[in-house]
């Protein structure tokens, strides 16, 4: 086990306090802004494709993955084949797996029961990953999962409200808003991941992913995101390990 993290004086001492700290963290996080803009854009998109507002809000709760939701709404609107749609949604959400695998060991209780993890894991997205990786080490292990739930549910609540707002505003939004709302996803992913990259290995993974990603995508090999993660991530990890040994 790791050495005990230096708990701050504000470290919560109950599940409720940890949940509220998570919600407060979410409220002041860049992701509150990012998710509001993203889901206003998504809500407007679903309106334009003739889907219902309840469907749009439910998709935010059930998928909780912006790019996958855009793909699904677009496919339903355009009548893409079912298999193609499910495949595209699945491929766009691959990032969630390594995210959960790397976050869970940090935030899970000592002996977690699977059913107790289903809901916390559902909240996990880039936003929760970034905030929890940054702040969970300062919180006692037994309250970390509650902290994640607080971050996730506050952001999701904002996302659901923003979806409804975007849906009802769709006619009034300027044309450029849709483009700006879609651009905020890569922009925020890039800078928040860069801020969280303290290890050499993480910085290298970010840089390699930015170079290898487009190369693989342009070869149309299929599964390019998955391969980008594995190849760029493994290269970065190997380089980091070599540096650790050399040091």
């Amino acid at each position: 086990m790791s050495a005990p993290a230096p708990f701050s004086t504000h470290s919560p001492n109950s599940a409720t306090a940890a949940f509220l700290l998570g919600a407060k963290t979410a409220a002041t996080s860049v992701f509150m802004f990012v998710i509001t803009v993203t889901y206003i854009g998504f809500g407007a998109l679903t309106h334009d494709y003739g889907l219902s507002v309840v469907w749009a809000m439910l998709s935010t709760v059930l998928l909780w993955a912006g790019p996958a939701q855009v793909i699904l709404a677009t496919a339903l609107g355009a009548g893409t084949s079912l298999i193609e749609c499910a495949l595209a949604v699945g491929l766009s959400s691959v990032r969630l797996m390594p995210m959960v695998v790397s976050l869970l060991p940090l935030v899970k209780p000592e002996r977690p029961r699977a059913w107790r993890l289903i809901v916390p894991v559902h909240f996990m997205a880039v936003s929760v990953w970034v905030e929890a990786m940054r702040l969970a080490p300062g919180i006692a292990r037994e309250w970390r999962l509650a902290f994640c739930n607080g971050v996730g549910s506050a952001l999701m609540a904002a996302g659901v409200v923003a979806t409804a707002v975007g849906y009802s505003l769709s006619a009034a939004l300027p044309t450029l808003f849709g483009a700006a709302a879609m651009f905020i996803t890569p922009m925020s992913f890039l800078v928040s991941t860069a801020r969280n990259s303290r290890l050499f290995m993480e910085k290298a993974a970010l840089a390699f992913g930015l170079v290898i990603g487009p190369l693989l995508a342009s070869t149309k090999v299929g599964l390019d995101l998955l391969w980008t993660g594995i190849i760029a991530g493994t290269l970065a990890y190997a380089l980091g390990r070599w540096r650790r040994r050399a040091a």
Partner: protein
Amino acid sequence: MTDLLLEPYVALVLLGFLPSEIWRWLGMVLGRGLDEDSEIVLWVRAVATALVAGVVARIVLFPPGALAGVPLEVRLAAIACGFLGFYFIRRSPFAGVLVGEVVLIIGATAFGSR
């Protein structure tokens, strides 16, 4: 909509929720027994970081919907300026996002968007 098209709500669960959520469940099964300091978790963290970078590159280079109407040069300039904004303005993600968005909007207005 295709003839086969299920009810939108059935499609939401079968074509949206399940294909996406399966990755979280898989992550839960794989990550539940691991130690946070183990080498494998370190490697997976590198893979996750690279995957996020891959998503960034993919959306900027091959954007969906409305973003595709903004010229490639503008998208590239916006993501680069946003990163520089983040880097030089107290490493604030807020600064990065704002700078990137401002450049995107000015660029799209100046050089046109379809």
